[in-house]
């Protein structure tokens, strides 16, 4: 759990959080979502790339990943390794029920001005200390006027424009019969309440998920649904969908396979007082089997 953790932005994470329009997609890909018995492992690839699930850009750091077991305990990542294009890790699925594996990140980013000079909060690069604490941006010449924490914004800052970001990215793995404990809503940010369980999706049955913001059904959430393996067919077959008035997303699956689901919502209810906007995203990779 890395909530309330100011984003230490790797280039990859920044790409996803800072510009939702960016095509770079952050994904986790489990070797399977369904195992028989409690002696099995899943092995997971994690990366950031345009095409799903084709790693050709940046790995996702396994350090960001948390494992939630069905009984509420925190599980363990084993054998983490980071390659050029993707990282991998294993998780021993040693308890029956549905596990959640992934990342939960939150942060505040934005801009402000000090003496007419624009500064950044969060984002890429190394922080250069607070304004006035030394010559900001003096070395290198790159846009280095950057601080890492909200608390580093000086009192005389003007034009403070901050955005709070919450981003979750999960996979779900089930040993034996599926359970729903890992879907218990925290009531904070964008979450899903499964109507169809993510680990029992079938290509000839509609998938249904209720999206919640702060625990309440969220209408009008934009959701992108993309099947993997575009390389082996003509069309990407991505769907741009929206949740209904009841917060429910209805998904038809054009093919069986692994799907990347990415939902985003924004409002003006940040928990950080100095921020004016809150951007939330929920991402999941789900497996849709053939009937």
């Amino acid at each position, binding site marked *: 759990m890395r909530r309330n953790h100011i984003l230490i932005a790797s280039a990859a994470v920044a790409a996803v959080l800072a510009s939702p329009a960016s095509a770079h997609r952050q994904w986790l890909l489990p070797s399977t979502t369904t195992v028989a018995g409690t002696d*099995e492992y899943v092995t997971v690839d994690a990366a950031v790339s345009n095409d799903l699930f084709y790693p050709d850009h940046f790995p996702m750091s396994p350090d960001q990943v948390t494992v939630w077991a069905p009984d509420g305990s925190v599980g363990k990542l084993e054998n983490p390794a980071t390659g050029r294009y993707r990282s991998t890790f294993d998780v021993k699925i040693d308890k029956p029920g549905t596990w959640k594996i992934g990342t939960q990140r939150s942060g505040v980013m934005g801009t402000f001005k000090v003496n007419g000079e624009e500064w950044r909060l969060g984002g890429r690069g190394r922080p250069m200390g607070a304004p006035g604490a030394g010559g900001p941006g003096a070395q290198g010449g790159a846009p280095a006027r950057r601080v890492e924490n909200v608390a580093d914004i000086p009192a005389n800052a003007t034009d403070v424009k901050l955005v709070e970001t919450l981003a979750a990215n999960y996979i779900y793995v089930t040993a034996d019969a599926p359970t729903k404990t890992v879907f218990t809503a925290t009531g904070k940010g964008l979450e899903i309440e499964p109507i169809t369980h993510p680990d029992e999706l079938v290509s000839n049955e509609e998938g249904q998920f209720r999206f919640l913001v702060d625990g309440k059904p969220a209408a009008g959430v934009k959701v992108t649904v993309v099947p993997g393996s575009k390389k082996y067919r003509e069309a990407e077959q991505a769907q741009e969908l929206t949740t209904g008035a009841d917060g429910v997303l209805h998904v038809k699956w054009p093919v069986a396979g692994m799907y990347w689901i990415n939902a985003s919502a924004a409002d003006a209810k940040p928990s950080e007082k100095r921020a004016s906007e809150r951007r939330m995203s929920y991402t999941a990779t789900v497996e849709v089997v053939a009937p």
Partner: protein
Amino acid sequence: MTTSKVMPALSLMAPALVAGTMAAPAAAATVSITIPRVNVAEYHRPYVVGWLEPAAGGAARTVFVWYDVKKAGRESGTKWLADLRTWWRKGGRSMQLPADGLSGATRAPGTYQVPLPANLAPGDYVLKVEAARETGGRELVSVPISVPVKKGGSASGSSELGAVTVR
């Protein structure tokens, strides 16, 4: 899924044995399943499962499941039961295996007879047989039947299963 667990429910137990040891009621029906010979370099006997679903919907009842019952150790034979993906969702994932009277070893190509449970409530059902083969394919065959079985029924797979006949 380990072998040491106690059987969860009597309803899962031994319909085949019961039917075999008692005088067979007139209504008792039999399903015959043909496992085809597949001409490939690497052949493994398929995992095969049969179950009944009420035609109007409801809980599935497993009739037989043939898998690598004896394989133990780090990768036990139960590991690949999830490859019988439809059955797994319909209830296989909640069963404790092996189960007396239901589970058995994988079968070589040939035709096998399995009695349907003698205590089925009258009504319409669909008998489903699913096969999944290591380094091979997977197939599901459905045969609608009415209990008590008067007419029977038959359907055939095209790759992993041959004829499935209830009579």
